[in-house]
């Protein structure tokens, strides 16, 4: 892959992580009482906008790279999502959860190295 394609992949993955954190925050806020839930639609729309950026960039890269080679690159994002969720949403995983996340990332690296 060329440098430009790598940069587009990184930007798309960042947009994915930001979008998912906004979506989760919107859906969590929706569960709160009416007063606290105010503004959840705006957060949802921001999340969807970030996901749209991810989607279009991903589509552009996909037209130039084999799907089975490209998908593993996306697979590293769960690690960033877990870290982002811990930092911005205060989520925590137990040791089995962390082991599962790390193993899936290792699996993704193996697939991408093939």
């Amino acid at each position, binding site marked *: 892959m060329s440098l430009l394609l790598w940069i587009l992949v990184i930007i798309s993955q960042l947009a994915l992580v930001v979008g998912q954190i906004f979506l989760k925050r919107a859906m969590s806020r929706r569960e709160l009482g009416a007063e606290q839930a105010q503004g959840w639609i705006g957060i949802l729309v921001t999340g969807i906008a970030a996901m749209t950026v991810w989607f279009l960039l991903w589509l552009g890269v996909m037209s130039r790279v084999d799907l089975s080679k490209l*998908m593993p690159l996306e697979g590293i994002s769960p690690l960033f999502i877990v870290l982002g969720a811990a930092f911005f949403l205060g989520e925590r995983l137990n040791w089995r959860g962390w082991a599962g996340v790390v193993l899936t990332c290792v*699996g993704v690296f193996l697939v991408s190295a093939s």
Partner: protein
Amino acid sequence: MDDASPALLLPKPAPGLFWNPYLQIFLTVLLTAAAQILLKVGADGSSTDSSTWSLLGVKELGSGWTWIGIFAFVASFGGWLYALRFLPLGLAFSLTNGVHIFVPFGSWFFLHEQIGLLRASGILVIIVGILLLAQSVAKAEEKV
């Protein structure tokens, strides 16, 4: 390490198998895998086009396969938003790694892409990782 799961603090879903957030995650994974394969079929149609519109993914919107893929993505998105109401983001998103199992098999079956030994090993490791994640959920729910 803290063994508490934030899932315990989240609201309970409605009764019934269909409303189980883990089933919704599974359906999301299946639909996303189908969408990725459909988008690849649509994107292949413009792979020789080097224009900026094509690089930004706009040119690919001219294919019917792309739109069916988009429809599958939108359908998967509904299940995903539902699951997010009840599951922690980190756990739910990690479970969606199942897509890396279905996409290579789908790519092999429909697009005739190859799966070597290393790739098959990677898929196996991903399966073990997802099983560990599922076990972490089971252990957390046992404590309720």
